[in-house]
């Protein structure tokens, strides 16, 4: 088996050819990867609800403090 045999080096400086190819291919891949990505996009991360900590000094059962005051006054 001949490995790398007979490979001609570019007579002229065409080193830009591969760079151009890479640029085009990178763009194609980026588009494709994004369109196929199974990870759901645009879905806001679900915020973990803070666990209520029982605390007599914190009002949690009422929507607002006014409701609590009215109830206690009544």
């Amino acid at each position: 088996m001949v490995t790398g045999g007979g490979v001609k080096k570019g007579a002229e400086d065409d080193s830009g050819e591969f760079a151009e190819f890479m640029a085009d291919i990178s763009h194609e891949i980026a588009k494709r990867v994004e369109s196929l990505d199974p990870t759901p996009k645009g879905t806001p991360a679900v915020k973990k609800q803070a666990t209520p900590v029982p605390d007599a000094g914190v009002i949690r059962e009422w929507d607002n403090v006014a409701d609590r005051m009215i109830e206690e006054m009544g």
Partner: protein
Amino acid sequence: MSVVNYGTREITCKIVYYGPGRSGKTTNLQHVYSQLPEERKGKMVSLATETDRTLFFDFLPLDLGTISGFATRFQLYTVPGQVYYAATRRLVLQGVDGVVFVADSQSRQLAENIESLQDLHANLADEGFDPRTLPLVMQYNKRDLPAAEISTVQELDETLNFRSVPYFAANAINGGGVFETLRSIASMVLGRLSAPASKGS
């Protein structure tokens, strides 16, 4: 068919250069290899006879590095063009993602071009591919030869390109048209990359 593997973060595509003997398939790969920067230069594997004709196949792994977070590899193969290597051609076609058909522009080679194209379609069908939909690009090579010896691009296209796929005039020995051809087939193949859940290689 290739897939975007989101698990291993890999994309691998197999492209096969097909065509009659001495049409310039190996020359295409040699030019691509010659243009690779040193850090990407793997080994091009050729198995050739003493007269430099491809005996089995050529293989050029094209490691493009990490693109958009994916390790991307193109595997470029050629098939031996001579008629009696039919079994090898079928073998090389297994798992192919795209084909470059390298036609010899010489007028006297027109029959060989047609025969090779028919052979390609038969082998693709045998391997379970739909020859009408597999990404295909035509390359009309040896445009550097004297005009009296070669068919015009239009003649070649009318005779060979019945799928009306993209085609390129080339003189691969000087590098002309080689990367244009590769860019076109790579783009077509990437456009058909399937989602991870799809059946594929």
